């Protein structure tokens, strides 16, 4: 086709890569950069390296195209073959877990939340990559370190996060009496009540939705001063603060669109885009889709951070996307090189631009990317890393906190109370018991 020698490997790579290469405007340029980078990089891929990479299935198409472009450039510059497979949010973790347990199948996983913390002993120490990137790109946000480090060493690189922020219809919020988006808990509750009264209801997932439900319910707990575990990882969920959070969420739930207890991660996207839902908590993907398919909704919607808690501080649980390298890979250097390459400005900047706000950075320099200010509706997603907490909250991120979020301990507690299955005391007691089972 062109100057590249079509060796056996590039023939085997198949249609996907060709397609991505065809969509490339500056693939030649990118390749030149990639070659120069590979010369200078501290990680030298093993000769003949083949990497199996698993990533979550894209929510924003352009992001995936840009990602594959980077993969392509890396393959051509270094001769490393990368086989990318995609799985939906919910299937990433079981697949990665099986690979971790059997010690084969995957080399690199780009997953969600605290995935590396489920099996820290199976993750390659990435401290050198993290230090290299931190030095080059203005340092890591504190939440980035919390998401990457276990016992002083980096077990994964938090590539990006997607913010669980409020998506709302401007006209409906104004009609409910809020020209400006409320900044405190009382105002937020009032907004949701008013919207329901006007027949333009809000709704947030209370089902087993790993991203959506965990996100806003952790915020609600933290905003009222509640915590699942304290600083020394002791279970402290059974507290008056939690009871306040439960009552607050119940107040919101009673004004939600019916059915949120059965919602999964895609339910609110569908309902919002169909014009049936007027406020929810989500990544920027609704807006990105609306701009393409439903411009009236895009025009009328905006984003905001969840309101501050009783102490005046906002603490959100945003969906982090860490990348990890398994200890049993035969090509650790190639994996590290790829991870570093991915987060270099030349690659990362166009990539987050293509993601249109879906990927928020943990590396400080990338908050200067024009994507965050070009459209003011994107701006709230810039601060995701600043306000993010790990699922451990004030505690130490680790295996147990990762298990607690995967087992929906908090989501079940809130849903139990909101749907009237249990009263406040019982709901807290069952959550306490579940948490103690995990943190034993």
């Amino acid at each position, binding site marked *: 086709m062109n100057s590249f020698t079509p060796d056996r490997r590039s023939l085997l790579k198949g249609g996907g890569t060709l397609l991505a290469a065809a969509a490339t405007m500056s693939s030649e340029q990118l390749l030149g950069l990639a070659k120069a980078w590979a010369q200078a990089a501290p990680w030298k891929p093993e000769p003949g390296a083949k990497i199996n990479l698993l990533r979550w299935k894209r929510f924003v198409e352009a992001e995936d195209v840009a990602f594959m472009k980077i993969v392509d450039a890396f393959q051509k510059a270094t001769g490393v073959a990368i086989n990318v497979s995609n799985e939906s949010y*919910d299937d990433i*973790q*079981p697949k990665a*877990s*099986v690979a*971790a*347990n059997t010690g084969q199948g995957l080399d690199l996983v780009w997953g969600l939340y605290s995935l590396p913390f*489920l*099996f820290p*002993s*199976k993750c390659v120490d990435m401290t050198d990559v993290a230090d290299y990137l931190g030095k080059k790109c203005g340092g890591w946000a504190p939440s980035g370190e919390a998401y990457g480090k276990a016992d002083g060493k980096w077990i994964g690189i938090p590539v990006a996060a997607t913010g669980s922020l409020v998506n709302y219809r401007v006209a409906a919020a104004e009609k409910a009496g809020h020209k400006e988006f409320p900044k405190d808990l009382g105002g937020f509750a009032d907004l949701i009540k008013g919207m329901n009264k006007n027949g333009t209801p809000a709704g947030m997932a*209370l*089902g*087993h939705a790993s991203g959506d439900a965990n996100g806003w319910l952790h915020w609600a707990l933290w905003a009222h001063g509640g915590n699942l575990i304290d600083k020394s990882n002791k279970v402290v969920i059974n507290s008056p603060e939690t009871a306040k959070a439960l009552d607050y969420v119940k107040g919101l739930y009673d004004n939600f*669109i*019916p*059915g*949120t*207890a*059965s*919602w*999964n991660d895609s*339910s609110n996207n*569908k*309902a919002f885009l*169909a014009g*049936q*839902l007027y406020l929810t908590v989500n990544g920027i993907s609704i807006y990105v889709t609306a701009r393409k398919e439903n411009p009236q909704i895009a025009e009328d919607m905006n984003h905001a951070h969840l309101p501050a808690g009783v102490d005046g501080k906002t603490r959100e649980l945003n969906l982090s996307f860490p990348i990890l390298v398994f200890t049993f890979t035969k090509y650790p250097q190639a994996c590290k090189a790829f991870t570093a390459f991915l987060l270099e400005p030349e690659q990362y900047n166009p990539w987050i631009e293509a993601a249109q706000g879906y990927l928020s950075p943990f590396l400080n320099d990338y908050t200067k990317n024009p994507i965050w200010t070009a459209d003011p509706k994107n701006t709230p997603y810039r601060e995701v890393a600043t306000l993010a907490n790990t699922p451990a909250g004030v505690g130490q991120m680790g*295996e147990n906190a*990762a*298990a*607690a979020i*995967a*087992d*929906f301990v908090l989501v*079940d507690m809130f*849903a*139990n109370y909101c*749907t009237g*299955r249990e009263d406040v005391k019982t709901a807290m007691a*069952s959550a306490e*018991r*579940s948490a103690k*089972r*995990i943190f034993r």
Partner: protein
Amino acid sequence: MSTLQTSMPAQAAAVDTRSLWSRLRTNRNWVALWFMLPAAAFLILFLAYPLGLGVWMSFTDERIGRGGVFIGLENYEWLWDDAIFWLSVFNTLLYTIVASAIKFAIGLYLALLLNRHMPFKAMIRSIVLIPFIVPTVLSAIAFWWIYDSQFSIISWSLIKLGLIDHNINFLGDSNLARGSVIFANIWRGVPFVAITLLAGLQTVSPSLYEAAVLDGATNWQRFRYITYPLLTPIIAVVMTFSVLFTFTDFQLIWALTRGGPVNATHLMATLSYQRGIISGRLGEGAAIATAMIPFLMAAIAISWFGMQRRKWQQGSNND
């Protein structure tokens, strides 16, 4: 024959001089065992070993990615006062009993209908099989749309007809969700029961019915005293399978509700997966899976003993 005659006395004569191994090698009673060995090895490797490993795991605190140590009954002790576990046991029993009973009733009725002579018989029979052929995940996704809290076709139709004024909360309300998943399971399971029972019906000799008609037997009497007794062994087999499939169902629930709302549809299988694989506690997940074994054994035992009781199985009449 001649080899047999020569080898027997030779073996008896040399009994003291040959080693134990060489005697075992030629002993005719042991030959059977040698021949069974490959099959036994296969069973042990692929059936007994995984099962044993699962049971062993339930006594350890194994997690994903690292081995566990023996902790005795600790996993079971935690499960014993775990409300979610007991809820899942209740859900599983409810799901199995209700779904199996309805599947049997509808399946038997369908089989009796299909056994009649009618035009396009072969085609209708194959159409009945369709729900069984569709991959579970596909039909689960179809049901997921049917039950969607905002876009349900059922809610939509009823609203357009003016019968209700808001969407039905199929998967968001505990009891409705249970009903919905049971309905989906029945939809999938009926063809298996119906077609298998139909196969059983075809083996019943028409002459029995003719004789009964001559004796003036009513429709009900013919069913009760000819069809039902002759069908019993097939019913036992079909229902054993049906109960086992339903009890261990996973895909349908996982695709539809993931055990929600608030664990109202969590079955033991889905809970075991959530705890074992999703949150990484293999030991605990294995304990939940192991806790299913007694129930399954009981189901098998009931139908097995039920089948043994039928006299005709030993060749005599079923009088």
